[in-house]
């Protein structure tokens, strides 16, 4: 009871940090900022910790069991093994999904950076309509993947969709292909639609970064006789590397967890041509009821995320930006 009273009185009578050293023992400890700020940061931290890190841990434990079907998982130490992880190595559908995820991770990320950079440079060079065009390019990013999935299914419709009727109209009938139906085109078509949605995001980050570059850099390049492209290539783009890194991290992590767009368009099985780990995890766990195997794929995705984010956070920490 007295301890509670002490906390109470401490909270009521704030003190400056200098006073702490004069007092000793528990009283000083209770007066410390650490304890006094606890009511603010502890509840959100616990809630986040329980749902995020508690979840990760529990998921890992499930992945060690043989939990499948309607049988409840048996959390006994003697049942734990890495069978689900070794199973991945020999599972061709895991290989397909992992390959496509890596393609998405690399190709989609690079293309997004390129498109975002192009959009940012274009918008930055406009004399008017900057804000409206910025709004247009960022708009898809504000929409649900379910909504954009529905729109793109219509765009890609082989007979009456917008893309193919446009190609037919321009006399380019050879290009009027079955974009989502043909397995060799499918992943490319998925990436194209996702670039449409994420390009504006990359643009916004690049634009913010472009605006921190002083006008003198452009002037100096011009004085040195550099043209438009040389100025950007040699002077401006190198200064955007930190923006590129943050965009790449966000987009790569998205590639690992991408789900809703593919699920809307293809259901839970996009086929080996466009299956990715994010969709496979759902299919294995919630359609096929192979819970432990699904949990193992989920753990792999988490490890992948950490592998992408950890170097980035370390880099931020070293730059003193954490």
């Amino acid at each position: 009871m007295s301890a509670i009273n002490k906390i109470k009185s401490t909270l009521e009578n704030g003190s400056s940090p200098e006073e702490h050293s004069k007092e000793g023992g528990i009283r000083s400890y209770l007066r410390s900022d650490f304890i006094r700020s606890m009511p603010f940061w502890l509840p959100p931290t616990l809630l986040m910790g329980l749902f995020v890190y508690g979840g990760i841990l529990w998921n890992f434990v499930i992945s060690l069991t043989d939990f499948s079907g309607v049988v409840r998982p048996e959390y006994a130490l003697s049942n734990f093994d890495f069978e689900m992880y070794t199973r991945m190595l020999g599972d061709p559908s895991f290989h397909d999904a992992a390959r496509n995820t890596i393609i998405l991770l690399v190709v989609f990320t690079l293309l997004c950076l390129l498109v975002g950079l192009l959009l940012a440079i274009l918008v930055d060079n406009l004399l008017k309509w900057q804000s409206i065009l910025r709004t247009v390019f960022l708009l898809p990013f504000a929409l649900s993947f379910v909504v954009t999935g529905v729109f793109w299914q219509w765009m890609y419709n082989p007979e009456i969709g917008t893309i193919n009727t446009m190609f037919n109209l321009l006399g380019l009938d050879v290009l009027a292909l079955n974009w989502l139906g043909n397995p060799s085109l499918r992943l490319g078509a998925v990436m194209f639609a996702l670039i449409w949605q994420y390009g504006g995001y990359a643009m916004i980050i690049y634009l913010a970064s472009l605006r921190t570059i002083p006008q003198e850099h452009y002037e100096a390049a011009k004085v040195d006789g550099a043209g438009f492209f040389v100025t950007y290539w040699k002077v401006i783009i190198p200064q955007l590397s930190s923006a590129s890194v943050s965009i790449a991290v966000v987009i790569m992590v998205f590639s690992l967890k991408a789900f809703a767009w593919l699920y809307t368009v293809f259901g839970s099985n996009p086929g080996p041509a466009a299956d990715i780990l994010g969709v496979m995890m759902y299919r294995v766990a919630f359609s096929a009821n192979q819970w432990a195997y699904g949990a193992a794929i989920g753990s792999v995705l988490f490890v992948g995320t950490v592998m992408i984010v950890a170097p980035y956070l370390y880099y931020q920490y070293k730059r003193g930006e954490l």
Partner: protein
Amino acid sequence: MKLTTTVKNAVGWNDTDLNERFEQVQRKHVIATILTVALAVFWVSPLWGGITTAFKTQSAFISTLPLTPPTVDQVTLNAWAVAWETLSPTLWNSLIFTIPAMVFSAVLGSFAAYGLSMVNWRGQVALMTAFILAIFLPKQGILLPLSRFWNTVDLEGILTSLGYFSLPFADPSHTNLIILIITHSAYGISIATLLFRGYYLTINHDIVEAARIDGAGIYAIYRHIILPLSYPMFMVVFIFQFTQIYNEFLYALILVGGSDPSAGAPVTLALAELNSGFSQNWNNQMAGAFITAIPTLIVYIAFGEQFAKGVEY
């Protein structure tokens, strides 16, 4: 144009070098404008094709090109009526859980960011790292525990024993809606914390110190200094969280399952269901996609600046 003439007048017409330079500058802007507008036309084409299709009659749908708008006698609101009837109950569900989850995650994020920025403590960076990593969390990594957790916690039983369902406004769908509120609040805390923390670090610490010396406690400082300063940031976090939570699909798919409005299904699930029906009717699907997008479109158009700020974290 105006700038060119002003400068030319100021410098004198005969400066050919300057004239050349201005022509170059203008050419650059003209090319940029043409390219950007062309790209912008492409960018809106999926939405434009959708909206024209949603307004067309069945015969116009077959006879006209996707991007051509319907003529007066080809316009029908039929598709909108059908889609609205299917989606509207779930649209309300979406708003019922999105708005509280948006508020809770923002408030908790503000608390966490304030508490953490007040502490001069070694573990702070580690804790902040945990928050930032949580932002990037792949949902698939916690999907199973999440569904097992809500299976174990018998929320319906708890609510019944508390007498919740005898309240006049209570509805069976509230069980799942409360589950969604708690889930989205918990997963939204991390990004809200990061956004608020970035903002709090820019606040001049002298104000806080001065208040402390005057004897203000940690609550008083939050209530009278930090909170009033946070209002613009609350708008940014609200806008960001609203679009995130409203657009979300996977948690709802796992926790609610089907698209039954009385089970608390959100509109994203109902749209996916409408889309996957066996008889594909593009007019209805397009109208449905727009109806689903309306709340986010309104928020995006009204608060575009705040949305862009939230994205820029």
